[in-house]
């Protein structure tokens, strides 16, 4: 391939990936109501956003679910990754199978299966059901990331600690956790991002009483676009970008 063709192919793909987002962000600072022409720079739509309690509520609900579910998923997943890498137990293969099948299975199937479970269990869809669902789809990512880190280091360190009299929970908190911390943090950040951005699964497990941002945006876009959505999406995009970049730096740390 000629150099020219290579450069244009790569630029075309990146333009395709980033162009629409860039346009969205630029127009969130546009004075005009319509995204047709540029009038002048203005923070009007960000101000409108701050005056819109419904949107802000949805935003805080999303943050709350993302924070709590990512912490639960990280704690549980770290423990799980530790268990599968250090112990042999019945059902270990089944466990790995489930972890990978959650990562592979279509979101919509997980959404409807949890919907059915919650309805039959008599749970009112809302905060709790969202929390459970989000922990469930984040958990495999934490387990896989942390597992990779644990398999990367020398098991003799653990044996040495045990020989020196460390108890099992001390081995975990004083040796393992500090060593796997970058992976744990990366897992947490990725879970946070996944939770903040999820549409499909949340769509099925949330109720009218508890609105979260992606679903709010979905319904707003369906009804007709208002420029506040541009501002909101810009904020959300930058937030995810920050989390992903941080997670990426940490994952690099893991490979080292």
């Amino acid at each position, binding site marked *: 391939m000629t150099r020219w063709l290579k450069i244009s*192919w*790569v630029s075309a*793909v990146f333009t395709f*990936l*980033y162009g*629409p*987002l860039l346009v*969205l962000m630029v*127009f969130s600072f546009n004075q005009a109501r319509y*995204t*047709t022409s540029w009038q002048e720079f203005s923070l009007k739509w960000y101000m409108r956003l701050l005056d819109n309690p419904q949107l802000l509520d949805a935003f805080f609900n999303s943050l709350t679910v993302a924070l709590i579910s990512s912490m639960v998923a990280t704690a549980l997943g770290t*423990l*799980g990754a530790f268990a599968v890498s250090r*112990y042999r*137990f019945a059902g270990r293969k089944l*466990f790995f199978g*489930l*972890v990978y*099948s959650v990562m*592979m*299975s*279509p*979101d*919509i*199937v*997980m959404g*409807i*299966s*949890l*919907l*059915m*479970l919650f*309805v*039959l269990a008599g749970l009112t869809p809302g905060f709790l059901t969202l929390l459970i*669902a989000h922990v*469930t789809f984040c*958990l495999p990512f934490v*387990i896989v990331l942390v597992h990779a880190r644990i398999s990367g280091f020398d098991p003799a360190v653990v044996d040495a600690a045990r020989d020196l009299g460390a*108890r*099992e*929970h001390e081995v*975990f908190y004083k040796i393992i956790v500090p060593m796997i911390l970058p992976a744990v943090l990366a897992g947490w950040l990725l879970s946070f*991002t*996944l939770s903040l*951005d999820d*549409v*499909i699964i949340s*769509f099925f497990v949330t109720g009218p009483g508890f609105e979260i941002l992606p679903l709010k*945006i*979905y319904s707003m*876009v*369906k009804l007709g676009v208002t420029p506040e*959505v*541009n501002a909101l*999406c810009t904020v*959300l*995009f930058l937030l*995810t970008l920050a989390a*992903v*970049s941080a997670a990426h730096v940490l994952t690099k740390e893991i490979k080292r």
Partner: protein
Amino acid sequence: MNERQGFKFIAVFLNMAWFASFVLIPGLMVVGISFMTRDTGTFFSPPLTLTQYRELLDPVYAKVLGASLIYSLNTTLLCLFISYPFAWILSRASKHRRPLLLMMVIIPFWTSSLIRTYALVILMKANGIINTLLSAAGIVSEPVTLLYTDFAVYVGLVYSLLPFMILPLYAVMEKMDLRLLEAARDLGANTLQVFVHVVLPLSFPGVLAGCIMVFLPAMGLFYVPDLLGGAKTMLMGNFIKNQFLTAMNWPFGSAASVFLLVLMGLMLIIYFTFSRRFNRHQAL
């Protein structure tokens, strides 16, 4: 039970319990309910039947399923066509540039595909940027209809799923031993022959993985046709969503979901069979 055993028990038990309650049991429920009969009061009732599956094969629904499969298949092929050269160029970029380029692919992978879909709505509106640019350049005199067309749905699907194709392709291409390419060339192969006999077979596990990672989610992205295609286009996701939330037909919706799960199972079997054979081949 000593302390070590206790810790192990808690760590294993908590995770197993979570997966059993929120993955295994709901999954089995979907399968179970797909064999039951529709009931408006309790959502489903006992007599076990194959009615739901027979109904899926009914021409009316089979057509919807077929159309959805075609959407996903075309999306997969489009993604492959765009990503293959792209991933190749990326994997051959200089060492210090590669991390940045890769990072730029990963960012959209992790950011909300809903927001990205919405960004496309803005671009493709009748009075949106694309139309403004086209008429300013004098290419069109009247706004072209972009939004609410099949074209828009494809753009949306490819846009959401492109990174899922690029990343596995990049992963295999980056590991590819370039000496094999040189050897082929030394033995007299031309560029096309090198590509067909060396590059393509070596990258096949990546192609397969990428296709699975695009094809399966493509069927579930119900909000893409909702926002970009109007109500005309239906993916499996829209179909399943309607069965559960509008038609209240749990058994039928479950049967459609089982169809998706079976498809996923088949694709994974193909993938693992192939990559095992491939690894054995490599070892020789």
